């Protein structure tokens, strides 16, 4: 399924006009609509992202890379995407403090996921030094 950039831009423009109209009547529904459109655009993009990710996995497997590392990197990218999405929605609703907490949670979880990789790097370095 290929998606034109024009389609996405058109969707965004139409949604913006509808949100502007709806905001005068019901601000909460306008906010829900903007969340909906954001999720919709993300949903279209995820198919394209899947192509890139499949390519990355293929390259990694052809280079005989350890599968754990690739999986960790993919998870980190996924966490970054989700945290960004949530933080932007929250910031749109005017809750900047909550948005920065979501971003903080994303950073901490990424750090936790990176622990095994960092451990491996440090062990390698220590091995080099003791030689």
């Amino acid at each position: 399924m290929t998606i034109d950039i024009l389609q996405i831009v058109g969707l965004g423009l139409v949604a913006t006009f509808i949100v502007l109209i709806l905001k005068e009547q019901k601000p909460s529904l306008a906010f829900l609509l903007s969340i909906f459109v954001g999720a919709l655009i993300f949903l279209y993009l995820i198919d394209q992202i899947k192509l890139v990710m499949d390519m990355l996995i293929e390259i990694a497997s052809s280079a005989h890379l350890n599968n754990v590392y690739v999986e960790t990197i993919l998870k980190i990218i996924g966490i970054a995407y989700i945290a960004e999405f949530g933080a932007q929605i929250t910031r749109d609703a005017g809750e900047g403090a909550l948005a920065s907490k979501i971003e903080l949670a994303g950073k901490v979880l990424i750090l936790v996921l990176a622990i095994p990789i960092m451990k491996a790097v440090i062990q390698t370095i220590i091995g080099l030094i003791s030689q």
Partner: protein
Amino acid sequence: MSLDVNTIFQIAGIGIIVAMIQTVLKQMGKDDWAQWVTLIGFVVILYMVATLINDLFEKIREVFLFQ
């Protein structure tokens, strides 16, 4: 794609119609009913949005290899 774009117009339509019904009910002096109509409209749209976000999270989980 067309289905999802239809949902955008559905949400806009529900919003405008709910606003109209609310105005009419308020003119009739039934403020509590107007409140209920607003709440129900909000819940219906929230259900649509929640379904789509659930879809999105499932897709993300699938693409980025979360179990």
